[in-house]
Each structure stands twice: as structure tokens, then as C-alpha cells.
């Protein structure tokens, strides 16, 4: 029983580590978002040749679909797959931020 609890604790910790990127990695992901995604979606995410990524624009869209779009791209459009730059968990984290905790641009460049 005691061992089981320990195992549960360890796996929960491990899970926590996987699903929430480290603060440094979070910053790197936000930089990627504003600087590199920003070359099509606009640095302030208001859209450019790619659509806006503001929380209002993403409101009706499922998180799984959005994370899938980041990782796999959208064939037939200019959106490439980004899976070589970030993991599934990191894409999920980014989608959560975009939808529910929209990063203000200055937060990303001026930590």
C-alpha cells in the first residue's frame, strides 16, 4: 500500500513534468510563437497571411484539433507541421495558453 502510494506520487510528478514545460522551455515556446509563428500569423497574433491566433478567434475550436494543426500542419495551406520543434505535450500547453491565458506580446519578449 505504502509502495503503491509512492509509485502514484512518482508517476504524478513525472506526469507533471511532462505536461508542463519548464519555465525556460515555456519562454522558448512563447518566443517561437511570437517570432516564428508570427512571421505568418503576425507577431501580435492578429493574423497576416495566416489567420489570427487570438483567444477570440480560437474560441470555438477544439484543443485537440488545434494541437494537431500545430504538430501536423494543414495540407493544402501554408501551415507546415511543427512536430520537429515541439512535443505533443508542449503543443497542448501552447494551445491552452492561446485559448485561456493569451500571452501578451511583451510577456514573451520581456520576461
Amino acid at each position: 500500500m505504502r509502495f503503491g502510494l509512492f509509485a502514484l506520487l512518482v508517476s504524478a510528478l513525472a506526469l507533471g513534468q511532462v505536461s508542463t514545460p519548464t519555465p525556460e522551455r515555456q519562454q522558448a515556446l512563447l518566443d517561437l510563437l511570437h517570432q516564428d509563428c508570427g512571421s505568418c500569423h503576425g507577431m501580435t497574433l492578429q493574423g497576416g497571411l495566416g489567420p489570427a491566433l487570438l483567444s477570440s478567434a480560437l474560441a470555438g475550436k477544439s484543443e485537440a484539433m488545434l494541437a494537431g494543426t500545430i504538430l501536423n500542419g494543414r495540407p493544402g495551406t501554408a501551415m507546415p507541421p511543427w512536430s520537429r520543434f515541439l512535443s505533443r505535450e508542449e503543443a497542448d500547453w501552447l494551445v491552452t495558453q492561446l485559448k485561456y491565458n493569451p500571452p501578451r506580446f511583451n510577456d514573451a519578449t520581456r520576461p
Partner: protein
Amino acid sequence: MRNFIRFFSGRYPIGLVLLAVLSQTLLAEPRGTGDIGLVVERATGNLTAINTTSRRAVGKITGLGDLSHASLVYSPDERYAFVFGRDGALTKVDVLENKIVKRVEQAHNSVGGAISQDGRLIATSNYDPGGVRVFSAETLEKVADIKAEYGEGQLARVVGLVDAPGQKFVFSLFEAGEIWTADLHDPKNPKIQKFKAGKEPYDALISPEGRYYIAGLFGEDGLALLDLWNPDAGIRKIVPEYAKDDPKLPVFKMPHLEGRALIGDYWFLPAVGHHELLVIDRREWKVVRKIALDGQPVFVIPRPDERQIWVNFALPDNDRLDVIDTRDLAVVRRLTPGKAVLHMEFTPKGQEVWVSARDDDRVLVYDTENFRELARLPADKPSGIFFTSRAHRLGL
């Protein structure tokens, strides 16, 4: 009298100090701007003015808004820059005084602009509302509004806006798949000519003499060519090898098409999605050679003497620059200026190149003959670098 002498000499020569201050302000040496450039600091909305002779930053202009993907053009006298911000702002900057002269918010989302052949008109390329707006270079008052209408009154996003001989602007409509020319001899009544170009033109260039306008197509293979000396011949589709992306080689940054990338009869254009440069013979408009590279090229810019071509790359290879020798078309040098190498600008005679490394917050200056680093300047997320010599080039 003694007091007067003391005023200019002795232990506290206040008069001399005053004279020095006055001469600094009132009698400043007149100077030109031919060795001045502007570096866009995209994240903070600032410009850093640099001097290519001293290789130093000489000024900072702040408060220009969202400068992601910002570009600028210069007035014919090289005194003023017109800066096109992503947020739709058009700002006139005095590069001698390092200050904003005038600023208008002319659209909601914008991607660049051009200055007319006579230097009197500024045109902006807008995504929202889709179209081109034309302003007086003197006052920034709006003189014309060209709506990029297609289909049933929808507005297309405008890309690839350039100036052309005959007081024209030429641009492409992304959703409409069209190329338009606008004759601004009568600025209030632009004469528009429309051409079917192909699916989703995403960027364009004009050849250095102003004859050929070439748009890259995202929605189909190939390029759309318009001969401005013979517009009635319409659009010609060229270079089917200019293919869109291969699923195995996703495009993490769209290449830029550069009007300067013409050497003799050969165009050097970045292939979309492929790790190569295409060499196109403009007499036949055929690909005559492909130069293999280790990444997807973004900017392909010849040194002004045409002996070298410098290339930067899309993610994940954006930490380097390759130099191609035009005698044998081989990569002869690789430089690693820093993380996210976004842009490079040659001094007008090509002895130096200035390079921005966005994620390392610096601009580097290289000697193009021996590749030695000559200077390193701090800059806040630098992107485009623009020297005043652009004032006298079509399409820049």
C-alpha cells in the same frame, strides 16, 4: 576687459564651453545621409540608425508600433524613410534628425509598401482592408484608395507591391489570383489594369530595370511573369519546376523574392520547400541549373559586384549564411552569425555586408572579401536592414 578675457581663458573658461556647445547645436557640420541605414527592431517597435562608415549606431527612433515583417523605403534625397508596420501604420522618419516627422494609421493589417518613381507618392500593401492606399510623400495625406475587389465584392490581401517605370505601382492579389498595375500619373484617378495570374500569389519581384514583374504562386506550381513593356501579351506561366512544397520538406518560412537576384541573364531564385537555388536563364525562362544547399533558402542576394551570392535559411537552419562564388556556383564559405539570421544588406559597392541575428539580439558587419567580422552592434530582435542607397533603385 579683464573679465572678458577671463571669460574665455583662465581656470574656468565658461565662454569657450558655451561656444563649444553653441557650435555643436547651431553650427553643426552639414552632412549627407549616403552612409546611413536603419535596422528594424521588430519586437520593440524601434529603429536603430547606423552609420556604415563608423560602423556604429548613431540614433534610435522609438514608437513605431508593431514592426514584425516591417519594411521601409527612402525618399529620393535619402533624408526620409517611410516605414510600413504590420499594424497598418505608415511612419515618415527623418534619418538626419532621428525623429518621426509624421505617422498615420492607414489600415489594420499591412505588409509593406513602395515609393513612386518620382518620389512623390507612397503606396501601402494592405491585408485588412485588402488593397493599396496611396499617400503624398510630403504630407502623408491619402490621395487614392485602390480596393482589391474580386468576385462578389470581397477584398483580397495585397502582396508583392513594387514601384515601376511610368509612375506605376504593380501588385498581386492573394485570394483573387490577380496581378494589377496602377498608373498614378493622375494620383486621384489611378488607371488600373488587371491580369489573371494563377492561384495564390504570395510575393513578387520586379527586375532591376523595371521591365519584368514576377510573382511566386503558392496554390500552384510555377511563377507568373508580366512583361511591363508588353502588358497586352498578358501573363506567362514560367518555370514549372518552381514547385510548391513537398510534404517531406515543409516550409517553415516562405522565401522572399528579390529583384536584385539577377546576374547577367540569370536569375537566382530560392526554391520553395526545397534545399536548392534555381538558376533561371531569362532569355528562355528555363531552369538551367539547381544549386544544392543544406537548408531552405529565404533571401538570395548577390553582392553588388555580382561575384558572390549570399543566402540565408528557414528554420531549423536559420543560424547561418552561405556564400556562393558565381564563377563556379559552389558554396565557398559558411558563416554562423548567430541565432535566427533574418536579413543581410550590402554596402552599395559591396565591400561589407550587415547581417541581423534576431535571437542573439545583434547586428554583425562582415568584410565580404576575407569574411572577417568587422563590428558587432547590439540591437533588440533585429530583422530588416535598409541602407539609404535603396532610394535610387526600382523595386526596393
